[in-house]
């Protein structure tokens, strides 16, 4: 079934891409079918918890790579959320994009694939599957954030999002590998709780990964930037998907790693910090969408904090907040998108009188906002209530710190909610009402549905809490005793909640009136600067490593040879005493002549002189061949030498006669390295001489005998060349032929370059 649903998504994406230019309605319908299917499946699974649904597909058995899916109750709950909100988003997008929108097909296709990646992520049971879909959401969200890529800001934001979440993915991979090492299995469902150093390392790595994806401080900077995406994307990204990935990761590994102090302390600290920083960020904004985005950051911190606590009650509260957040946050973003589309602005300083001109939208916003603030009669209330209870249920200092953090964070949440609702729908600063274009049903209906769900979720709290309890119990078995309570009565937690709402509302109202300074974007700038500095650093390294100067490259290589040869020095020193000075006096004389002539080559200033010196070297070497007993080499060398010297003269004879001068210091470096290289070669050869033994003597006698018998010739060298090692000769002559082709090509470019169009056809030509 998971495969079928994923396949359905892929098909839907392709179909939407293909159909969008022909029939918009059909494309939208097709794109909505896939997530709707997923939602239905999630719902069915939630209603019937008795059967576990798992399926696997082995990809690379030897590496234990594969697609392993398991639909646990928590996954089913998320599937329902992802699928249902995804469906609503597609409908919403239909209303959001102005007619006609050429990129709609691309948008719907990417959105569908993104949804599929998210589904895969929540179903993943093996760590590889998790990683795969994790990175898939990174890549698809990159495309979604950068959808309006003609805009430079969108491109930068997309890059920031991809690099932070993508790099986080690699950390996840590393962390998971360590975790496998610690637990001995790659199946998440089979991992036993573990502690120790390995577990601590895994905990740190996994929390870093979760922080990147779920926008925890300080990796939160990509999330507000992702607002560059079209609003349907923001609604989807911020509610049910993407940003929840990290939270889910924390929730899933919490039973395994919760035993390590590092995991608990780190996740709670990160969560609390993020909750505050996000809420403060939200209070700073004047852009309605950014208020919500920062609000998401805060909520994510809240969730990580809850899952980090690790008690059954906290886990239950976490799942409840997760579900409630998915519903109200999607609704709120849809509202912002509608406001944006109908008024042309999202700046709360410019908006005014919308409560009157857009009453339905305002109602939806108020409902979703109240749910976010944790006010009855909405789903957010029992969820928040559970969280407060969980905090109060702790003991000792933990109760003080965590309880305080959650309460303070909740106050701020109420504050920015008030700030948002009043800012967007309240009277404007200058008292004028904003002009509003006519509403569209497709924009309003999905948000209205979500608002209704928030209410219904509260009313039928019994029905709502069943799947939430089951999901929480999947993470922490002890959680199955808890349920949502829509009206708790006069409990301690209730009074705390009331206080939270009152204080928060006052704060928010005050904030909304106040004129504060411009929102800080330090974090985002820092991230971009870091990326740009990476590029600068890369340029510096490259400038140092890649000078573009060939002599430097060659010299580097010669130096490496010299360095490598150091190892030969010691055996060479041992062997050198046993070596014969020369096989014959003639050899010694010719060897010295060779060196002398080679030196001459470097000293002669004119090209003709150099060619002559080269000829002398050739002759001396030929002499060495003679005394070594290699007549074939002699003959060949003489002929070759002649051609080369002649070639040197006729090929370069017309050039300027003297060689250009180079700097003295550079010359010294060259001479030194060349000398070292020569010494290295000598050491290598001498060491080899020392290593030679009679046991490895070449089978000359057999070779000679067989050459005469089977090769049919007395000149052994020739037999080797044309028979024994004919393949070498075969290769060698092909090399010659190709080199000759190259000579012609270089010498006669006119023959080689195509005669017909040398320049590309111009536009006019193509049109004609």
């Amino acid at each position, binding site marked *: 079934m998971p495969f079928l649903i994923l396949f359905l998504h892929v098909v839907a994406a392709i179909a939407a891409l293909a159909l969008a230019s022909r029939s918009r309605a059909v494309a939208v319908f097709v794109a909505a079918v896939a997530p709707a299917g997923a939602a239905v499946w999630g719902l069915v699974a939630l209603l019937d918890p008795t059967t576990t649904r798992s399926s696997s597909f082995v990809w690379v058995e030897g590496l234990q790579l594969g697609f392993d899916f398991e639909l646990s109750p928590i996954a089913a709950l998320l599937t329902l959320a992802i699928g249902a909100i995804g469906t609503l988003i597609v409908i919403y997008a239909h209303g959001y994009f102005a007619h006609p929108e050429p990129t709609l097909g691309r948008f719907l296709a990417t959105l569908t694939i993104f949804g599929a990646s998210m589904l895969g992520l929540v179903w993943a049971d093996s760590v590889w599957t998790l990683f795969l879909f994790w990175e898939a959401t990174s890549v698809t969200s990159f495309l979604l954030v950068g959808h309006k890529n003609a805009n430079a800001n969108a491109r930068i934001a997309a890059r920031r999002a991809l690099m932070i979440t993508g790099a986080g993915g690699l950390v996840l991979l*590393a962390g998971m590998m360590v975790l496998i090492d610690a637990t001995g299995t790659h199946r998440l469902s089979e991992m036993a709780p573990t502690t120790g150093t390995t577990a601590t390392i895994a905990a740190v790595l996994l929390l870093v990964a979760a922080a990147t994806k779920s926008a925890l401080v300080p990796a939160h900077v990509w999330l507000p930037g992702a607002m560059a995406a079209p609003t349907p994307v923001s609604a989807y990204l911020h509610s049910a998907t993407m940003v929840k990935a990290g939270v889910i990761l924390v929730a899933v590994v919490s039973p395994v790693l919760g035993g390590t102090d590092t995991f608990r302390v780190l996740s709670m600290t990160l969560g609390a910090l993020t909750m505050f920083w996000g809420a403060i960020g939200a209070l700073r904004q004047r852009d309605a969408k950014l208020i919500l985005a920062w609000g998401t950051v805060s909520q994510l911190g809240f969730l990580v904090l809850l899952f980090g606590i690790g008690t059954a009650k906290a886990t239950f509260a976490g799942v409840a907040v997760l579900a409630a957040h998915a519903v109200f946050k999607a609704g709120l973003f849809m509202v912002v998108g509608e406001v944006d589309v109908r008024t042309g602005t999202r700046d709360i300083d410019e908006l005014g009188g919308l409560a009157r001109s857009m009453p339905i939208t305002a109602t939806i916003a108020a409902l979703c906002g109240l749910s976010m603030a944790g006010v009855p009669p909405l789903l957010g209330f029992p969820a928040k209530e559970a969280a407060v209870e969980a905090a109060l249920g702790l003991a000792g200092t933990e109760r003080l710190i965590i309880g305080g953090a959650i309460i303070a964070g909740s106050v701020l949440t109420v504050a920015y909610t008030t700030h948002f609702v009043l800012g967007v729908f309240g009277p404007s600063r200058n008292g004028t009402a904003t002009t509003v274009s006519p509403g569209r049903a497709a924009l309003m209906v999905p948000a209205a549905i979500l608002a209704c769900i928030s209410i219904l979720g509260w009313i039928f709290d019994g029905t709502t809490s069943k799947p939430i309890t089951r999901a929480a119990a999947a993470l922490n078995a002890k959680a199955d005793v808890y349920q949502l309570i829509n009206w708790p009565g006069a409990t301690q937690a209730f009074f705390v909640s009331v206080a939270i709402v009152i204080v928060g509302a006052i704060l928010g109202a005050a904030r909304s009136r106040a004129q504060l300074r411009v929102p800080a974007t330090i974090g985002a700038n820092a991230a971009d600067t870091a990326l740009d500095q990476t590029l600068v*650093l890369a340029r510096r390294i490259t400038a140092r490593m890649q000078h573009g100067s*060939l002599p430097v490259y060659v010299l580097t290589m010669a130096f490496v040879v010299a360095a490598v040869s150091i190892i030969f020095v010691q055996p060479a020193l041992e062997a050198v005493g046993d070596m014969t000075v020369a096989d014959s006096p003639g050899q010694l004389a010719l060897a010295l002549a060779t060196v002398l002539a080679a030196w001459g080559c470097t000293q002669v200033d004119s090209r003709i002189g150099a060619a002559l010196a080269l000829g002398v070297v050739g002759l001396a070497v030929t002499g060495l061949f003679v005394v070594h007993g290699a007549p074939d080499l002699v003959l060949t060398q003489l002929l070759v030498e002649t051609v080369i010297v002649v070639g040197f003269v006729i090929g370069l004879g017309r050039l300027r006669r003297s060689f250009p001068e180079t700097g003295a210091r550079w010359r010294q470096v060259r001479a030194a390295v060349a000398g070292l290289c020569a010494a290295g070669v000598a050491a290598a050869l001498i060491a*080899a001489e020392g290593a030679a033994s009679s046991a490895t003597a070449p089978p000359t006698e057999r070779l000679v005998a*067989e050459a005469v018998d089977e090769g049919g010739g007395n000149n052994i060298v020739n037999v080797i060349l044309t028979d024994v090692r004919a393949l070498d000769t075969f290769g060698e002559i092909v090399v010659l032929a190709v080199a000759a082709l190259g000579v012609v090509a270089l010498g006669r470019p006119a023959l080689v370059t195509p005669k017909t169009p040398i320049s590309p056809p*111009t536009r006019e030509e193509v049109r004609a």
Partner: protein
Amino acid sequence: MTTETLIGLLVALPIAAAGLALALRTLPRARDVVTIAALAAETALAGVLLARTINDGTTAVRLGGWAPDLGIVLIADLFAALVLLVAIATILVVEVFALGQRRTPWGANPELTGPLLLVLTSGVALSMLTGDLFTLFVAFELILVASYVLLTHRSEAAQVRSGMSYVVMNLFASALFLIGVAVVYRSTGTVNMALLAERLPELDEPVRVGIGLWFLVVFGTKAAAFPLFSWLPDSYPTAPTTVTAVFAGLLTKVGVYVLVRFHTLTGMETLQPVILVVAAATMLVGVAGALAHNDVKRILSFHIVSQIGYMLMGLGLFSVAGIAGAVIFFVHHIPVKTVLFLTGGLIEEETGTSRLSDNGGLAMRRPFLAVLFAIPALSLAGLPPFSGFVAKFALIDAGIDARSIPIVVVALAVSALTLLSMVKIWMGVFWGAPPRGPAPPATEPRRRLLVGATSIGVAATLVIASLAGPLWNLSERAANELLEPTAYINEVLGSVTP
């Protein structure tokens, strides 16, 4: 056909076809038919060889029936057969692309490309199949001379200038290769690699290690490993797309291939730390260069260097998992890199330049091209579920198994940076506003051929990803054979014929 004949054919057939294609150089149709037919036949032969090797194991051929200590031995084991098939199939795809690109300023000259690609093919086959160190030198020269001419044959200023770097560095390496052969022959009395596998380990430690290092330098230069990589990013981008694509996919890989072959066969585990350091440095400088430059072909060229580091990492671990990782990296990387350069060529076809600053907005105009680029680019960055992920994952897994944490960290970081540089290309070429000025689109029929060839290549990378399971099994088998080369040695030496 016996497997022995098959191995011989793989080396000689392309040469014969090259001769024919050269003879027919002025008859375009016949010449192209010969080239394509020969490459197709070669691909088929390589396929058969792989199938046979999987079933029957390693096969050696003694050319002319001469004993292995006298004559030349060609030998096909799993590693050779696997990499060879991928390499040759890649060349075939590029040749199809070349047919489409000929009449443009970026196209290679058809009269030479066909024969030279065939020579190159033969060189690649020979270097992978040879069991003889000196024949390996000849094979290298075959590849190199063909590449020299392919690189410079249009004799434009940039090509001649960069050709210098390429030719000079490689000629130097070739001279060092010969000196290395001399050292080896003097100390062991043979150039047969199977015999070397027996005799080199018997040498004194410093000499043995010295020989290992020496060939690390020689093969490292061909492979563009740190610090001997600089010639590559200077020269490759200047060649016609077709040529660069082949170079990118194959040449450096032959260097690494031989390094893996030689160093595993002669048991050079002692060099492990050196190779790992070189691997890490190669990854880092390569990716730094890719991030620094602003031209698609340059960026991709630096990535060749960077990715070489991963293969070296596999070798450096000297474990079955590591070497198997390197083997599957070969299989993934050859087509992916080639296809990336082909898409680079398509970009050039569209806009007339591969500079990022002169490109933009291509995703809107050519969405299919964007997809063709994105798939291999993500694969290169090692994102799942593409082929690069399996390869990189295998290497990282092997690294963790071997507790070589620093190299694992570098490998992961370089993965992220690779992604950043791919994003850079994506944002420069496919996103943003289209560049101003005339952007002459290619004519349709030719474009179809170009896009077709590239699509086949991209599809091939996807096939590799989907077949990763069996491929991994083969890679593991190949790695076992490489680390435990008794079968190889026995097959070559067997009963020495009188």
